[in-house]
């Protein structure tokens, strides 16, 4: 199953950050296993229709976070040490996903209390089984 990457044109978050979040999520959730080779910068930029520099920045951020390793001539691969994620990694991912969610629902002019209530309901009735 190929992991899909989607850039939301209405999201004020920069494209490189949107990509970084999606890669982080895919790596932490195990969808991208350690050793998986990522597409080349040029290929991913062409597929998404964005500048190569944007993808390069995403990879650079992922590398800085220790999620991927880039070898000369060997491409960029998911780092071996990354599995279901360390506690810090998972917390970082949660914060990033929460920030993204809040940013999007606030665009719908929903009050914060209603957002919190919706999250509480989702925790009780919805979402992936623990």
């Amino acid at each position, binding site marked *: 199953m*190929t*992991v*899909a*990457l*989607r*850039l*939301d*044109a209405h999201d004020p978050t920069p494209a490189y950050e949107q990509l970084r979040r999606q*890669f982080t999520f*895919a790596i932490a959730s195990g969808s*991208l296993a350690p050793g*998986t*080779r*990522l*597409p*080349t910068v*040029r*290929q*991913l930029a*062409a*597929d*998404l*229709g*964005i500048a190569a520099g944007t993808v390069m920045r995403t990879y650079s951020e992922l590398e800085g976070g220790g999620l991927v390793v880039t070898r000369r001539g060997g*491409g960029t691969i998911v780092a071996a040490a990354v599995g279901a994620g360390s506690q810090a990694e998972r917390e970082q991912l949660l914060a990033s996903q929460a920030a993204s969610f809040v940013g999007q629902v606030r665009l719908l002019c929903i009050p914060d209390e209603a957002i919190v209530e919706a999250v509480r309901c989702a925790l009780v009735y919805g979402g992936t089984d623990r």
Partner: protein
Amino acid sequence: MSTMALGLTGITMTLMTSGLAGLGVLVAVVVVWAVRRSRAVVFDEGRYPGLVALRRSTLVARYVGLAAGCVALVAAASIGRFGRGLFLAPGAAGAVLILAVMIGQQSAHGSARTRGVAGVEHRRILDYVPRALAVVTLAVLVCLIVAAAWTTSVASVDESGLYREFTAQETVPVAIERGGAQYPASFTLGPFPGGYYTSQLAVGLPIVLVLGSVALWLTTRRPRNGSDPVLVRVDDALRRQTAEGIVAAAGLAFSLSLLGVALSAGIAVGGMAGLGPHYAIGAGALGLLALGSIAVASWCAVLVLVPGGGTVKPS
């Protein structure tokens, strides 16, 4: 006498009939194979208009390239004296065909792309190139380089000063009345694929190699929405079809060039067969090379003429 003549006529007729029957069977096999190959890449056309455009441009480029390649073949073949252009023609035709395929790919560059959506996938040239065909094409290229290097190194100049003849230096026994000694003598036959002809290969074939490599790279690099499995299946099939056409065009250029070198060298060397067994063996080896190159050229010609459905790899 008349009985013998009748007998020979009968044998000739039998041979001709067998030959025609064999040719008929070969044509039938090729036609059946071609029809089976010609199945189109099918998908929901209403849902994927980009893929429809991509499939159309892939096929149109192939057939425009074939027509332009034929023109290039004829034009290049008429260049130079003593049939020199015949050695340039396969390379020129192959290069033009590959160029057309490349232009076809570029004209539909973004057809399989959905801006802002992609799959995490690493595409490689080797995923699309047909292995067996690529190996055979490379083997033909190696044979061609070896054969052309040998013919170039042993060729001699003709009266015009052109390296296009084969000269055998042998010691031959002379008549008993002159003492029965052995004297050196030289025998010359041509045309032979010396530097005069092989220089054309040195121009055409590197161009085919470079263009083929660039075309394969561009075919692999063409963007797509890798997160849609249906689109990926169809796009992979079209990429495989294109890559097969590129490798087959190169294979056709190399095998026809090898046929020219092996056939002309074989005829010249075979003409010296009476001077010693090594000439006969050499001519036989060159003849086998020519036969092999005909087989490869026929295979490549069918692959170029009839684009396959781009076999889908089992997932």
